[in-house]
């Protein structure tokens, strides 16, 4: 099953199960979604529940939040999360904080979803990862699916959740296929929010990753395995709440940690994971935490530079070896 089909089926099933669920955003209806995630939904649920909006993110995100105040369960699609900055005040101030400010009167059951982070060749304004920003904000939940199972289980969980959820997809994963079990295909399937998944068990080094980077981490683990390093790969799935206990338990076992993400490094998810492990498992670490992240630069267009701007499998391999004190090449200066 492709991630695209996983998302589409999750939306379809939740809309069919709960008449309060609706979808709004640019091109989600007649065009079937800019990335075809909402294919067929307009036909099936009609224009009252699948709404094409003008290109006015602040306006339609605000309307989505207002509808959630009233008790509906809107799924708001951003064509990409880069454009969510036009609506970020509604995500943070109108959605995340209302339940608290109203002492529980105004809950906000809404999902903001869409592709996040780098795609291919789309340049600096269309490549940013917003995981760290949104996940810094209490009141929000932030989910980052990797596989088809994740996409289905987490999107269904997000829609059913009574709180505002930021759901960060990845365009480059939409077309990827993953094997799924019958359980995953069942319409009752749902994944727990706040729980990471150990995608691969290992004992020598822990690698945390989310979204597309889980695939890279798994590839790195395969390469490492050939060299006798047995890496444990954690698919974070949820950035807020962050599954500190799974991460710490793994590090207490492996004593080594590599964090991987595509976002900017400063104040990123890797930094937080590092701090969490230092706080809870300081004595267990046998090597410095290795942080692999997007380069600290705006995203360049040229393919060769773009490749340098984001983590590659070999970066993860190299960092894991360093963590295991295996010989690695000397640092170069660009």
């Amino acid at each position, binding site marked *: 099953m492709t991630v695209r089909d996983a998302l589409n089926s999750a939306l379809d099933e939740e809309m069919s199960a709960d008449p309060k669920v609706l979808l709004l955003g640019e091109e989600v209806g007649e065009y079937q979604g800019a990335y075809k995630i909402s294919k067929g939904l307009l036909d099936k649920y009609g224009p009252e529940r699948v709404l094409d909006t003008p290109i006015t993110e602040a306006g339609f995100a605000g*309307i989505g939040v*207002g509808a959630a105040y009233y008790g509906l369960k809107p799924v708001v699609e951003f064509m990409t999360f880069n454009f969510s900055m036009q609506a970020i005040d509604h995500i943070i101030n109108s959605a995340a904080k209302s339940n608290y400010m109203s002492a529980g009167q105004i809950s906000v059951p809404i999902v903001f979803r869409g592709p996040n982070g780098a795609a291919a060749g789309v340049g600096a304004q269309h490549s940013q990862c917003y995981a760290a920003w949104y996940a810094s904000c*209490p009141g929000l939940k932030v989910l980052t699916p990797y596989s088809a199972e994740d996409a289905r289980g987490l999107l269904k969980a997000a829609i059913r959740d009574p709180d505002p959820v930021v759901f960060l997809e990845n365009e480059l994963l939409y077309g990827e296929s993953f094997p799924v079990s019958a359980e995953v295909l069942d319409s009752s399937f749902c994944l727990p929010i706040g729980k990471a998944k150990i995608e691969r068990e290992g004992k020598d080094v822990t690698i945390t990753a989310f979204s597309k980077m889980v695939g890279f981490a798994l590839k790195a683990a395969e390469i490492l395995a050939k060299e006798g390093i047995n890496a444990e790969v954690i698919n974070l799935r949820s950035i807020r709440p962050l599954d500190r206990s799974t991460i710490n338990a793994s590090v207490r076992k492996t004593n080594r940690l590599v964090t991987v993400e595509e976002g900017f490094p400063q104040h990123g998810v890797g930094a937080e994971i590092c701090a969490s492990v230092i706080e809870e498992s300081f004595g267990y670490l046998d090597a410095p935490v290795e942080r692999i992240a997007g380069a600290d630069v705006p995203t360049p267009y040229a393919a060769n530079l773009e490749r340098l701007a984001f983590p590659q499998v070999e970066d993860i391999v190299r960092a894991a070896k360093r963590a295991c004190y295996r010989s690695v090449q000397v640092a170069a200066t660009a």
Partner: protein
Amino acid sequence: SDTTLTIETSIPFTAHNCDAPSRAVETSPSELLTFYRDMAVMRRMEIAADSLYKSKLIRGFCHLYDGQEAVAIGMEAAINKKDCIITAYRDHCIFLGRGGNLVEVFAELMGRKDGCSKGKGGSMHFYKKDSGFYGGHGIVGAQVPLGCGLAFAQKYSKDENVTFALYGDGAANQGQLFEALNISALWDLPAILVCENNHYGMGTAEWRAAKSPAYYKRGDYVPGLKVDGMDVLAVKQACKFAKEHALKNGPLILEMDTYRYHGHSMSDPGSTYRTRDEISGVRQERDPIERIKKLLLSHEIATEKELKDTEKEVRKEVDEAIAKAKESPVPEPSDLFTNIYVKGYGVEAFGADRKEIRATLP
């Protein structure tokens, strides 16, 4: 006292892209008496908040509504509690109008448990969802798309109700209003945008912030009505008209010509950007309470003495509420961690020193 009275509004409505409603407003002696009393409570409450602020029992930002009472009261007279209201930070009286009580107001302002937001929201964040009041928002303009979203939900749910989204003349320039209005018009949402034009956004006169301060026309293709917001009957008539219009035809703008007596917030003396003459002129000629008082006297619905007595009662009511609110305890420390989520999944949340204070979210 439930005879029908028909009273003409102070001045005609000015309409944009629609036909103005009649100036003849139906009311009754009892309604006028209620208007008088309710506005007097609001006025008194805000004056009391001013004092509490000055004696440091209220902190932070505190925006008072005195002068604008006719908008809150007139609007409520035309609608019901299934209609929704959403407003900005100047929200105490809107809350009261929706049926909130004085103790909840003062307790919230003083950060106490019995406050309408249990002390967690503060002056700018009052809510009363059970009567259709959705806050209380601190970010200028944000409440307008939110209000259109409430209207969307009403239409989606096939409820025959409307939403009033209140905003100031300063907020009227915010781009998100235009975005929300366009969507509301495309989708025929029962959204009424109420511009409370008190002629200043903080220290900025309307004409310095808006090239076109004709706010009732700013919807361009959306109809609008300019209303004397100091005349509770005009407000009532306009809101009645607006509700009918919105249910049939979609969004509409009401510009309420009103005035705030206080400064913008408690930190603004309110006298550097406008003259004292201007303020006292409005008080003398357009005060919404005085206007009703005159009607009550001229129609011999009440005597000077009776109105004085009402005022005394109101004072007492407010004082008693303050006393009660003062007795309300401050929130429990554990409330720091409640209501972050509806569903916290048992996750740990941290205090400033995470090794000292942490809580499990329910």
